[in-house]
């Protein structure tokens, strides 16, 4: 059976293009289109599609508002031109999204992920993740957990289980229980959202969870070396070393 999809997009040309591109894909059947948030809610609850392409910036109701109102629980691929907050939240919850402008290639890449996720019943439902993403966005408290991708599957990772974070080009590698998960987000976003009591940025490229630090020993005259419990050694920067020394009583 084909995957039934609905397209929600307020701009007519973008909507037609997405319809065309999705139409080229054999395993998807596009069953409906909506041009604004309110009719999208009605359409989704009426047609109960497996997959929704949901634009964020729309008249009447935004894509995020649509998400909080629908009762049906489809897989969702968000589309957005420029919404840093939403994108950060999507990354932290491993929610699929497409940044405009996008064409055939990017759409196909996103749909490959969706295909795997739809076939895997053990996945955390996207609607739940997306709602939590919105709560995280509007809340002021630190992150309690994130979702990461692991070979097409979505895994929750509690913040207390994150041992450390390491910058890796445009990604951040999240190290937890000896595994590395890549999240396409800056160190800065993590630093701002993680509990500052526990997570300390010891270097431009390193944030460590103090609960997983075995010892801090002098590396040279000005810098500290941080020994993690798993045996990893991280050299803190000069300024951070000074601050870390200040923490010691």
């Amino acid at each position, binding site marked *: 059976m084909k995957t039934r999809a609905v397209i929600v997009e307020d*701009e007519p*040309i973008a909507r037609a*293009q997405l319809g065309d591109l999705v139409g080229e894909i054999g395993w998807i059947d596009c069953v409906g289109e909506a041009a604004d948030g*309110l009719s999208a809610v009605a359409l989704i609850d009426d047609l109960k599609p497996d997959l929704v392409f949901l634009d964020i*910036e729309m008249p*009447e109701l935004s894509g995020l508002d649509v998400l909080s109102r629908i009762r049906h629980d489809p897989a969702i691929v968000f589309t957005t*031109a*420029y919404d840093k907050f939403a994108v950060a939240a999507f990354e932290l919850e491993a929610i699929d999204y497409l940044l*405009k402008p996008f064409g055939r290639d990017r759409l196909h890449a996103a749909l490959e992920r969706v295909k795997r996720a739809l076939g895997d019943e053990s996945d955390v439902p996207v609607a739940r993740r997306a709602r939590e993403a919105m709560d995280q966005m509007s809340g002021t408290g630190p992150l309690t957990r994130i979702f990461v991708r692991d070979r097409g599957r979505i895994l929750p990772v509690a913040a207390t289980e994150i041992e450390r974070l390491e910058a890796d080009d445009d990604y951040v590698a999240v190290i937890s229980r000896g595994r590395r998960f890549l999240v396409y987000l800056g160190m800065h976003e993590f630093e701002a959202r993680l509990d500052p009591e526990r997570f300390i940025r010891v270097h431009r490229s390193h944030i460590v969870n103090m609960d997983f630090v075995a010892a801090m020993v002098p590396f040279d005259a000005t810098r500290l070396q941080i020994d993690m419990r798993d045996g990893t050694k991280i050299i803190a920067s000069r300024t951070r070393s000074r601050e870390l020394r200040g923490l010691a009583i």
Partner: protein
Amino acid sequence: MRGTTTRLRGWMWYVAVWIPVGLIYSMSQKNRSGLAMLVEPHPLSWGGALVEGFGYVMPVALLGILIWRLTGILAWPPKRVWRFVALHLLAATMFSLLWLASQAGLIALGTGLPTALQIVRTFAGFQFLDGFFVYGLVAAISHVVRIATRLREQEAHVARSDALRMHAELAALRGQLNPHFLFNTLHTLTALVRRDPATAENALERFGDMLRYVLDVKRSAREDVTLADEIQFVRNYLSLEQLRLGDRLRVVEHLDPDVMDCVLPSLTLQPLVENAIKYGIAPRKTGGTITIVATLQDELLALEVRDDGPGARSDIVDSAGGVGLRAVRQRLETRFGGKAHFAVTTAPAQGFIVRLALPASTSLAAVAAFDPAQSTASIHA
């Protein structure tokens, strides 16, 4: 305008300047010679010399405050020379008489009035002329100090308005290259490439023109453009937004052909249109109409951008206001002072109207050399 500290510092300077003058007079009293010896043949003690010296100078210092005030009223350069000269001559006469009277009074404290008048009579003529000389000196210095202060304040004002202009320009440019607009437009173009290559081509040309306009303004720091240029830019912008929004965006223009050659600061009109789309059109499913009006009213170029959208409470607009609107308003203020007008009319469900007016001129140079303090608006049509 000037702070209390500045004023206090001014007074301290004033006192500090008079102390050496008093000391010099005291020394001349101590070592008096010639005419003075005839009046008072006994040499003076230092204390007596100081009393006499400062007794001589103090009235001048006190009257000098009035002279300083007067130079504030009779500003240099004088508008009517005869009035300036006459008033200063009158003031100088009064100053000399008062100075003389003060000396008579001081001497009378020691000798009694009849003797004092006799003594004063011996040097009254000399002192009267001396009074004119001292008055001229104090008045001249006062004028010079005032001119210097004014020049410094003018320089600071120019620097301040330059900074404001840069700030407003940057804000306008940032608003112009609004990432939402950029990425959404690029997405539309991506979508059009296969579906409708001819429209895509046309849209890309317009997009290129828009970028060139913004970058040219930024690169050459060219502030002023003709209304025709700005309108063309706005039309390019609107045509791209129309591609995105489809028939939700409707545009009506009422442009008086006579004002199309008028010049205005670049990026004055576009932020208003962008604001109308962002708040008046895009949030509504059914869209709306933007009306752009350009007319000539009482030697002013009057522009109006109106939408029929949801509007807003005007008190909220006053306190918040979009960055784009604020930048335009600030820029007009620093540029034209009280000669430009900017007004927002809105109410919930009543749409949003921005009206602005600025001195109408068709000459780029005339606007560039526009001095808010002196120029009057003129039409070179």
